[in-house]
């Protein structure tokens, strides 16, 4: 797919929610944010780039590495679902906000794609694996993975946009108290 898309307002950089200047989230980035906001295009390549940036930008965050890995996995599954099934078009954008509080990593997304089928929000089943290699599923894992990782999922359709909220428990005692900066 070589569909052209409008350049993103944020030029593929990660604008930080605390008001600091947008900058590429690369290795050695001095910022250690506990929240980040970003708007990306609804294409597989934008999602891939965002996830790499997300991983780089959160390396210094306090939760266990496994929590951040889970967040990246969940974001990847959800965002690619929007790209593949959301019918949002290549010019559409997805707003992503990630915040960390004392008990959870919280992920909120907004996209202008098609309404989410209710079946996605119900608990998803693992596709049947069967015994023969030729019968193995090559897809259908995405929502199962999301449900396995997220402790809860909230969905609203507001002004023609899908608004999703996922939370991932960070585990007791892992997160030091945060400054009340919002």
């Amino acid at each position, binding site marked *: 797919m070589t569909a052209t898309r409008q350049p993103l307002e944020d030029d593929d950089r990660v604008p930080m929610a605390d008001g600091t200047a947008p900058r590429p989230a690369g290795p050695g980035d001095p910022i250690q944010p506990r929240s980040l906001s970003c708007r990306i295009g609804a294409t597989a390549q934008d999602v891939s780039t965002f996830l790499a940036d997300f991983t780089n930008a959160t390396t210094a965050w306090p939760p266990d590495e496994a929590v951040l890995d889970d967040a990246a996995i969940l974001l990847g599954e959800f965002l690619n679902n929007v790209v593949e099934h959301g019918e949002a078009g290549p010019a559409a954008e997805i707003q992503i906000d990630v915040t960390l509080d004392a008990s959870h990593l919280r992920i909120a997304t907004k996209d202008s794609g098609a309404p989410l089928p209710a079946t996605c929000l119900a608990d998803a089943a693992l596709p049947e694996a069967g015994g023969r290699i030729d019968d193995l599923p*090559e897809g259908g894992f995405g929502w199962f993975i999301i449900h396995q990782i997220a402790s809860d999922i909230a969905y609203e359709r507001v002004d023609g946009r899908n608004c999703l909220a996922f939370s991932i428990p960070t585990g007791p005692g892992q997160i030091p108290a945060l400054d009340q900066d919002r």
Partner: protein
Amino acid sequence: MPAAKPHEDSMEIESRIQDDVLILTPKTERLDANCTVVFKEKMHALSVTHRGRVRLDMAGIQFLDSSGLGALVAAMKALGQGRRLELANCTQPVMRVLTLTRMDRVFVICDSDAPSQGTAA
């Protein structure tokens, strides 16, 4: 111009044979929806003439999503002859997806690059 960083169209997979095992090493950190098509094509091209075991060295892969997982399944199906794809040196995030989906029971997961003689599963 300096070479661009690896991209969907230019994903390299290194190939070598060690003790009759075809060992393939994808030169990418991410096996995701953005590269599954080229990954499947290259895997097939590299393994189609090999009749023995096929092992993927996953040491460099830091991220696997469900599309990448599907591509691994497709690559294993393409091997034919009931052969199971061996996944060596999986990183933590990759193992997480494999175990969440219980596909760790479908592939042969091996820890090291050393040939594991006679480990029938």
